[in-house]
């Protein structure tokens, strides 16, 4: 076989679902277009439909704005969306997002954007207790998936999954909860963002443990991990976003600078000489 044969062979698709380094056409999963400025380019078209991803970030890094823009952009395209607020009351959350041009209260009135207070969901399920059992976790997964099913939700956010997981007593149960939730939502075609609060981002020194999540068990189970953090550039905090993992799509793994504008999140590649200043 000559060199030209080898190149020709690489250029041919190997069948449905195959990826080739150089070949075209490639199989591509349908994408959930986030509509967030720059993010769909980073993800080469958007989040693969039905994925469950972890959006981890430090405080003030823009997690809630990004997640809200994700659901609102879906609602603007006529999709039914849901946002479970566990860190702040829904009234306060909606008041905070009214400043952004992408938000329109009509979406809430028309039932395209459904915001739920997690505390109300707990009370409704009789889960007003400090620690959940396996049965409680299953009841919660069923309640969330029932809502998704009933409304026909295609975009879902749980903000944050960290506060929810604090009620789950061990890593195995957290793993089971996230796995079951992700699997059930995926079968319903729902693309989900789970917000995680983390204190620092990156790799821990010495231990080799990654710091993309709150409990360290979420990373392997979920389809994607996106982190938001801050870079200290000579005393000024510059927000950044990085996609660590996203199953089903080739994606950039570079750091992108984040700016919160009245139009929402905007992204641009972070200057390479400015990352470790």
């Amino acid at each position: 076989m000559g060199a030209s044969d080898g190149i020709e062979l690489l250029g041919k698709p190997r069948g449905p679902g195959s990826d080739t380094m150089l070949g075209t056409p490639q199989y591509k999963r349908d994408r959930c277009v986030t509509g967030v400025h720059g993010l769909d380019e980073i993800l080469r078209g958007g989040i693969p439909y039905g994925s469950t991803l972890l959006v981890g970030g430090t405080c003030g890094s823009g997690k809630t704005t990004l997640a809200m823009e994700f659901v609102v952009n879906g609602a603007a395209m006529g999709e039914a969306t849901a946002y479970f607020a566990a860190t702040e009351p829904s009234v306060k959350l909606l008041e905070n997002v009214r400043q952004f041009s992408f938000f329109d209260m009509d979406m809430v009135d028309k039932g395209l954007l459904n915001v739920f207070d997690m505390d109300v969901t707990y009370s409704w399920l009789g889960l007003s207790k400090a620690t959940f059992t396996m049965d409680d976790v299953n009841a919660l997964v069923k309640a969330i998936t029932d809502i998704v099913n009933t409304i026909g939700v295609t975009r879902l956010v749980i903000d944050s999954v960290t506060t929810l997981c604090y009620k789950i007593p061990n890593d195995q149960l957290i793993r089971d909860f996230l796995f079951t939730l992700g699997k059930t939502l995926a079968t319903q075609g729902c693309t989900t963002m789970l917000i995680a609060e983390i204190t620092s981002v990156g790799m821990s020194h010495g231990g080799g443990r990654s710091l993309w999540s709150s409990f360290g068990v979420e990373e392997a189970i979920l389809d994607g991990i996106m982190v938001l953090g801050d870079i200290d550039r000579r005393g000024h905090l510059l927000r950044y976003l990085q996609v660590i993992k996203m199953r089903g799509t080739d994606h950039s793994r570079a750091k992108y600078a984040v700016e919160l504008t009245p139009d929402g999140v905007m992204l641009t590649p972070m200057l390479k000489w400015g990352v470790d200043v």
Partner: protein
Amino acid sequence: MTEVTLNSSVQVRCGASNAFLVTASLIEPLITEFEMQGVYISASRGALELINTLNEIGVATENVHFIDCVSSALLGGTESTFPNISFIDSPIMLESILLRTLYHLNTIPADSKFVILDSVNALAIYNEDRMLAEYLHTLINTFRARDVLSVIMNVPDQTPPGVLANLDLYCTDLIDRGQVVIS
């Protein structure tokens, strides 16, 4: 300036003593003659002072959005009655300056838009040479790709040689307004 090509990037060299006059003589025809609207990135002086001085000599500034990279460092410097000024924490937040500029360009209704960066030598006070060269490369190409005229001001003898060499390479045009020597 008698002709404008939208996707071009013009390097404007001036002296320390004539910088304001050069600025005024550039911005005035863009607004009045070519009926353009745009964004002015002000790293040399506060936007409030700049607007007042331009207005005093009859240059209208309503259709220009000013990104002020200076005043946030002065406590109280961000109090302004002009709605067309936004403030950046520091000239070291280069990516924020770029994204804010893109945001404001998106809000401008005119077909012909410009961005004026005033100035490379002011940004060089705060930023390391390699980062500044990388930034200018990104900035110029970003606006060229969007058919936005970019005007990059600099005082050559106060600009690092490496940055200046890169600027010569990336810019499509050069206007040298030299130094006015007052004896």
